[in-house]
């Protein structure tokens, strides 16, 4: 889960400028900005699909071998399957067939399961979305308060303990954490079910609790570290000293002033976590046998299921872009200094 632990906060925007003083104007810029970012989606998605198509078709192996693996076969059988999935067409024709289908909302059918790619993906969102949301909720709800605590107790035993814990969780691979949790909490303690997504609401909550905890703890390390650092940064600022000098209560100062400003890097981290957890959930879903997007991706990659890989990559690309846009917007609401560019045209 390497990519989520970057301690970096994307800058707001290069053309970040002083905020226009009228609230209405700010809104206008915001919507213009969102529209502009959404427009980038189209060419980006195009690049992603071309890359995915080129790569999957250039690679050896592929769906025929995956379909027939270890079974007796003959050229006739292979020819029939190739014809069914139009695998003999030139790659450019295959791409055109696929992309024109996508334009009409038809993502094609999985070669492995013969089911519609779109329905496979949406079915798995039932698992991956709650899992990721719960994971991020745990990461944020534990990470931010613990980070604040660590900052308040800077240099003391509690701080040392918390910092150690955060580094440990960050350095533990998600699969190892998942395996240990499965063994100790799921099996030894018997608190959680050991496999599957569960059905209905309570079943789902119960089944996803442990994997979400694993994902959340993994992300918590980063959140905590970031919050702590941002809080300390804030405590050094003059306005905090000023606020305290005015006699404002310390909890009030912590929450109202310091935390609010410290939230900026933290929100970004949360956004990064949402894309990063996607990777983490590949590993966690594998260990917990959950039918989410992660296991779907791993399986389709292994099977060379072209239509499914393309559909998934497209979906993931859109997911990441949308999250980045959302983070930028949240940013703007927390930090009044961030603007969305002047209306240049």
């Amino acid at each position, binding site marked *: *889960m390497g990519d989520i632990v970057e301690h*970096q906060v994307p800058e707001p925007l290069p053309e970040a400028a002083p905020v226009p003083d009228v609230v209405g104007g700010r809104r206008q810029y915001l919507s213009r900005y969102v529209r502009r970012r959404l427009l980038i989606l189209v060419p980006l998605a195009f690049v992603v699909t071309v890359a995915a198509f080129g790569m999957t078709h250039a690679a050896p192996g592929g769906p025929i071998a995956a379909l027939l693996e270890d079974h007796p076969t003959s050229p006739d059988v292979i020819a029939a399957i190739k014809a069914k999935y139009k695998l003999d067409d030139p790659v450019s024709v295959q791409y055109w067939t696929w992309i024109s289908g996508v334009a009409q909302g038809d993502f094609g059918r999985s070669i492995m399961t013969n089911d519609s790619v779109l329905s496979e993906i949406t079915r798995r969102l039932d698992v991956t979305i709650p899992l990721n949301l719960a994971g991020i909720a745990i990461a944020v709800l534990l990470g931010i308060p613990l980070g604040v605590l660590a900052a308040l107790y800077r240099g003391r035993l509690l701080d*040392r303990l918390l910092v150690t814990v955060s580094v440990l969780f960050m350095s*533990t691979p998600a699969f*190892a954490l998942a395996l240990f949790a499965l063994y100790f909490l799921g099996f030894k303690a018997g608190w959680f079910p050991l496999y599957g997504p569960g059905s209905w609401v309570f079943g789902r909550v119960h089944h996803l609790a442990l994997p979400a905890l694993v994902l959340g703890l993994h992300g918590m390390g980063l959140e905590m570290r970031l919050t702590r*650092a941002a809080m300390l940064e804030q405590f050094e600022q003059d306005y905090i000293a000023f606020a305290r000098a005015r006699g404002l209560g310390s909890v009030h100062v912590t929450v109202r002033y310091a935390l609010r400003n410290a939230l900026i890097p933290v929100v970004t981290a949360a956004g990064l976590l949402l894309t990063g957890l996607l990777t983490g959930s590949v590993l966690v879903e594998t260990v917990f046998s959950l039918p989410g997007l992660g296991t779907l991706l791993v399986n389709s*990659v292994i099977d060379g299921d072209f239509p499914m890989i393309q559909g998934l990559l497209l979906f993931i690309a859109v997911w990441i872009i949308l999250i980045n846009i959302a983070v930028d917007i949240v940013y703007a609401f927390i930090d009044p200094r961030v603007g969305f560019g002047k209306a240049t045209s």
Partner: protein
Amino acid sequence: MSAIATASPRRSILRRSGFHRMPSFFLVTSWLIVGLVIFMALFWRWIMPHDPNEQDLLNTSASPSSEHWLGTDQLGRDIFSRIIAGAPSAITGPFIVALTGVVLASSLGILSGYMGGSVDMLIQRFVDFMFALPGLLIAIVIVGVAGGGYWMAVLVLSLLNFAGSVRIIRGASLEQRALPYVEAARTLGVPRHRIMYFHIWRNISPIVFASAALDFALALVALSSLSYLGLGTSPGVPEWGRMLAENQALLFTNPAGVMAPGLAIVLFATAVTVIGDWIYDRFSFSGRTGR
């Protein structure tokens, strides 16, 4: 530039991480762990009790004993020796990723920070884009579809995981640019590339190494994750992530043998992170402008 853009948060995170205040035994332990792993990587041939590849098919999945301290795996190989023999691959791959990161991030980051203007803007857009890419996920897809194993994974991670460092280095270079020595060098007619890649680089190198240490730890975790999914090293090569996957089946009979490789990853990654933080705190004295 907004205020946030110039005050790079990652730097302050590193500085504020608090490890300089840790009791020294924590740092010492980290150094000991890293030293031990490097020692194992250099001398594994001579220090391990058994040949890590020597199979004993009649003594498979054995529990720990005085002969085999962590028991044996599914082919009767000594797990303890394999953990020692796993040290080189725990260092090589992450080291390459971190090194590529240093080279790419330094060149882009200093260029971006020093030049400013449209060069900066272009590089920053590129970095924003790279930053949003989930490196490990892409590595899974590429290694899974195109093959190539461990080295392909190292390549993909090297090319995808430097964006964070570019930002840090850019931030540091921005601060350096404003310092008198740069101005002095410029008036003396020192060429631009020499100012950037000699003077500035030398002054911000602790920051570069600190972020490289973090990249190293992250790459270690990422590569072992790939190995766990069967997408990393070749079968038979002692590698901690792969060992964890292979030995999983022994969880009931030999929990120590299963968890040891996992623990090795966690400890090594943690130790490297701690040392990275320490390097930053100890040597990064040049970036304290305006505070």
